[in-house]
C-alpha cells in the first residue's frame, strides 16, 4: 500500500460520501477536506442544513417515545409532519362513503381529527396536534403505518 496511490478504493464512492455528509449534518460541520496522494474528498456546507437524501430510512432513526409532529421526514423547508403514534391501519375517511377527514389545502388546528389508525379492532381518531395547512398526504387510505411513520406534511402557521 504505497503512498499517493489509492488502495483500490474509490474516492467517488457515493455510500461513503453519503456517510460523510450525514456526519457533517449531524455535527454541523462546515468543511471536510480529505487528501491522500492524488486522491481528495472536499465537502463544504453552508449555514443551511443539508436535506437528507431520498434514500433516508423509511422509519425515523431517532423519533422520541411519543412521536410528535415535525420529527420524522423533516426536510427543513419549514414544513412539519404528523406522525403515526401507533402501529395500525391508516383510514383517511370515517367510512367508505364519507369525505376524507382532511385533504391537501385543509386548514387544521391541534384538535382537528386528521385520520383514524385502527389497531386491534379499535378505531383511534388521531388529532393534528399542530396548527397550519396540509400540504401533502403521505399515506394512502387503508395502508399500514407503524410508530413514527409520517402521515401528513403540514405548513405551520407562523
Amino acid at each position: 500500500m504505497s503512498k499517493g496511490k489509492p488502495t483500490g478504493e474509490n474516492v467517488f464512492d457515493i455510500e461513503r460520501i453519503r456517510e460523510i455528509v450525514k456526519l457533517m449534518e449531524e455535527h454541523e460541520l462546515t468543511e471536510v477536506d480529505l487528501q491522500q496522494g492524488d486522491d481528495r474528498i472536499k465537502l463544504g456546507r453552508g449555514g443551511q442544513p443539508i436535506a437528507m437524501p431520498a434514500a433516508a430510512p423509511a422509519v425515523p432513526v431517532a423519533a422520541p417515545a411519543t412521536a410528535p409532529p415535525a420529527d420524522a421526514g423533516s426536510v427543513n423547508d419549514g414544513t412539519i409532519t404528523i406522525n403515526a403514534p401507533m402501529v395500525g391501519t391508516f383510514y383517511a375517511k370515517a367510512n367508505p362513503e364519507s369525505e376524507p377527514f382532511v385533504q391537501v389545502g385543509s386548514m387544521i388546528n391541534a384538535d382537528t381529527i386528521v385520520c383514524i389508525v385502527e389497531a386491534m379492532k379499535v378505531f383511534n381518531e388521531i388529532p393534528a396536534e399542530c396548527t397550519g395547512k396540509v400540504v401533502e398526504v403521505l399515506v394512502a387510505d387503508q395502508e399500514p403505518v407503524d410508530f413514527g411513520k409520517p402521515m401528513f406534511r403540514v405548513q405551520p402557521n407562523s
Partner: protein
Amino acid sequence: MLQKILIANRGEIAVRVIRACREMGIEAVAVYSTADADSMHVRLADEAYCVGGAKSAESYLKIDQIIAAAEVADVDAIHPGYGFLAENAHFNEVCRESGFEFIGPSPQAMEKLGDKNTARSMAIENKVPVVPGSEGLIEDDSAAIKTAKEIGFPVLIKATAGGGGKGMRVAEDADSLENALSQARNEAQAAFGNGGVYLERYITSPRHVEVQVIADSHGNVCHLFERDCSVQRRHQKLIEEAPSPNLPAEKRKEICEAAVRMIRGADYTNAATVEFIVDPDDNFYFIEVNARIQVEHPVTEMITGIDLIKEQIRVASGEPLSFKQEDVEVRGHAIECRINAENPDRNFMPNPGTISLFYAPGGFGVRFDSHVYGGYTVPPHYDSMIGKLIVHQPTREAAIATMRRALAEIRTDGISTTAGFHDKVLQHPEFVAGKHDTKFVEREFTGN
C-alpha cells in the same frame, strides 16, 4: 406448517429465530423500538415494524402495539424469544385470543409453573425430588421454627413470587429465623407485591443443572439431556456447558427422566427447561421450570445436533417432533460464554456505545450468535449481552482450549466486554476440574 411469524423480541434471539424461519421457508417479521432502527434483526427480517420508543415499556413490552403489528403484518404466529413478554401468561392469552399462535406452552401451563409454590407441589405429585421444606406458605413464626427444625438448619427463606434472589434469606438457627423471616417478607412485599414466603433446606455448595425438554401436541415428551450453569454472578449465568461435568451416568438418567415426568405431568407443550440444584453427593432437587426457550439453548443444540427453534415452530404448527427420544445422542462437549458490554474491572458496569472496529470470532468448532457488527451502537436501554460465543469439541478440555482461542479473537474497539473475564474463569483450576459450584465466581473472583 406456519407460514409467517412475528418475533416479539430484539437482539441475538430475534436474529436466531429469524434464521430458523428462513431455513424453514417461513416469513419472519421483526418489531423494534426507535433505538433499534439499525439493529441487525430489523435488517434480516422480511418485514419490520417500529412499535414504540426506546424504553422497553414503550415498545417491546407494549402488548397492544405488538399485536397491532401482528395484525398489520398478517402473521399466523408470534415467537416471544426470552425475557420481555416470553413468560407473560396474559400476553400468551392475548396472542391466542387475537388469532395468533403463541410459540410456547398454553397460558394455563405457563401460569401453573410460573408460581414456584404450585410448581413445587406439582413436582412432588410427579415424584420429582424437591428440596426438603415447608408444605406451602409459612403462616406464622412458630410454625416456621417447627418446620425449620424438621427440615434441619441452615434453612433458606424464599419468596413464593420471587426471582433473582430477591426476598431470599438464610437462617443458621432458630434465633436468627424470626428476624430473617420478616426481612424476607418485607423485601418480597416490596419487590413483588406479595409477601408470601416458604422454607427449604439450605444446600451448601450447590451446582445448577437444568434439563432441556420439549413436548409436542401428540403426546411426545423428549429430553435433550442437561446443561450445567453453575458459573453465575449474582444469580446471572455467565458460562453454560453440556453435558454437566462429573455427573454420574445413572444420575444423568434419573434427572432427565424426572424432568420429563414433570413436563408430562404439567400437560405442557413446546420447549421447557427444568432447573435443579445438585448437591456435592449428586442428589438433585427441583427448583423451577422455565416455560420458554433459554439463552443457553445452543449448547444443547451443539451436542445433540437438534435445532430447538425449528422444533418449537414445528410443535406450534401442530406437527410431531422431528425425532424420538432414542434418537437423541450426546456428541462431544459444548460451552457457551455470554459476551456482555460490561466492564469487569468496574464491577461489571454496563458500557453501551459504538463498536468502531469489530472482529467476530470464527473457525472450526466455533459458533457466534450475535446481532452486532462493526459500526453498531449498543443502546443503553436493554440488557448488555452483545453475543453468545459457543464452542463444540470432542472433549471438554478441547472445548476450553477452543473457547480461550475464540475469546482472544473478539475485538470490540469502543466498548469493553466480559471476554477477558471469561478467559480468567476458564483457566481456574476449579473450573478446569469441573468442580465449581454456583458460588464459585463470587468466591474466587468478584467477591460478594
